[in-house]
């Protein structure tokens, strides 16, 4: 829901042909309207030669509409869908590397357990946790893990499909 016509976050799903330059055209559509892309995730779909691009942007409704018109004009885009909150199943993947200080091990593992994150790699000096969850939970674990030393972090950006019919 838009509050006082101000900017808010939107999640767009683009189904496009997997060809060189498509991402650049998509990015240009937003930049020309002065919209900052919050996150962008692209990958293959269930159909060969087609990719799905999930873009999260922050914009007001009018500006977003203008960007959508630009997107619809891109030849390679087959379908553009504005995924409304409550109508989509969303998830984000986080990979985060934490420095191991022996005294913090129990707390790090407790935090991982709390968020249902998993340790996927470990060495004498660091461990890598992964979490696939809604954005809110990903933000939550990052906030908790900031108490320890984060060495490296990577988020996939939002991945989404439309809700179950």
């Amino acid at each position: 829901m838009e509050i006082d016509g101000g900017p808010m976050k939107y999640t767009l799903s683009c189904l496009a042909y997997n060809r060189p330059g498509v991402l650049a055209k998509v990015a240009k559509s937003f930049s020309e309207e002065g919209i900052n892309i919050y996150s962008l995730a692209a990958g293959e779909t269930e159909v060969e030669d087609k990719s799905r691009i999930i873009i999260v942007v922050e914009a007001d409704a009018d500006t977003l509409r203008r960007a959508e018109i630009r997107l619809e004009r891109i030849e390679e885009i087959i379908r553009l869908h504005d995924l409304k909150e409550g109508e989509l199943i969303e998830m984000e993947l986080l990979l985060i590397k934490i420095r191991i200080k022996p005294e913090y091990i129990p707390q790090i593992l407790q935090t991982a357990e709390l968020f249902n994150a998993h340790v996927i790699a470990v060495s004498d000096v660091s461990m890598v946790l992964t979490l696939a969850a809604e954005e809110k939970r990903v933000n939550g674990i990052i906030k908790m893990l900031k108490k320890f030393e984060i060495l490296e972090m990577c988020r996939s950006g939002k991945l989404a499909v439309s809700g179950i019919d």
Partner: protein
Amino acid sequence: MNMNDGDIYDMHSTLNTVRGLEVCRMVVIYPYDRATLRSISAARDEGIVIPILVGQEDRIRECAERYDITIEEMEIVHSEEEKIIERASLMLLNGSARFIMKGMLGTGAFFHTLLEPRFKIRTKRILSHVGMFEIPKTKRIFLMSDAAINILPNFSRKIHIVANAVEAARRLGIGRVKVAMLAAIEKINLPAMPATLDAFLMKKFSETRYFGECEIDGPFAFDNALDPECADTKGIGGSVAGRANVLIVPNIETGNVIWKSITCLQKKEAAGVVLGGSCPIVVPSRSDDFRIKLASIKFARLLLD
């Protein structure tokens, strides 16, 4: 085998050192089976404990008569069925007994009442079961935890399990406590074998000196933890490999299988006690034989001081 490595040998002799200790009052609930009654009787005859039997008096006397066990000089506290655990727990609370043993009663029901806050059994530690065994060939004693209480402990619970087991090892007189965190292999394998991760991280955590003076290493497969030849053959180094005197198993199934393979298949002696509470708790399996129950009483008594 280096006999000056801080290890202790000969389980039978070690357990029998209780005979030189002050005799203690032990409360026994539901003493209705032959193995429990025999073990209590033997422990009393050896001057280890003064047993207080809590249960339905008629039934206790009837069972003792049936199994031909003399209990005439034992104190019996009659209690209605539903009040037995409560009566015994109050004895621990008011100091009229130093530790407790369970007879013919399910473990779940026993702990459900015993751990009620009013009896003040709980401490800052969680409860965990510690088993005591002897390697047949060398008679070297090792402890294992947890085969009975914690089903699939997370890392935080494993810290308590290690702490309880290390404390037991020290009280037994083991000089250099060497803890092996068990898994199926010696390498970290993620995500397939989470026990290997906990083992590795427990070793790192021990650098904080939380457990005091002891060596912790892992992951180890069972043979490489206890048998120096196996460890040497596989080129597994470190002071714990092949020489561990405390084993921490990743889950209750592993512990249970080790316990049962020693006691059921090999018919070897074992002793078990639950630690982490305000006193040792003897919780034998109802199917454990007389020897295990007696050994467990002795083990608990040794850990009391």
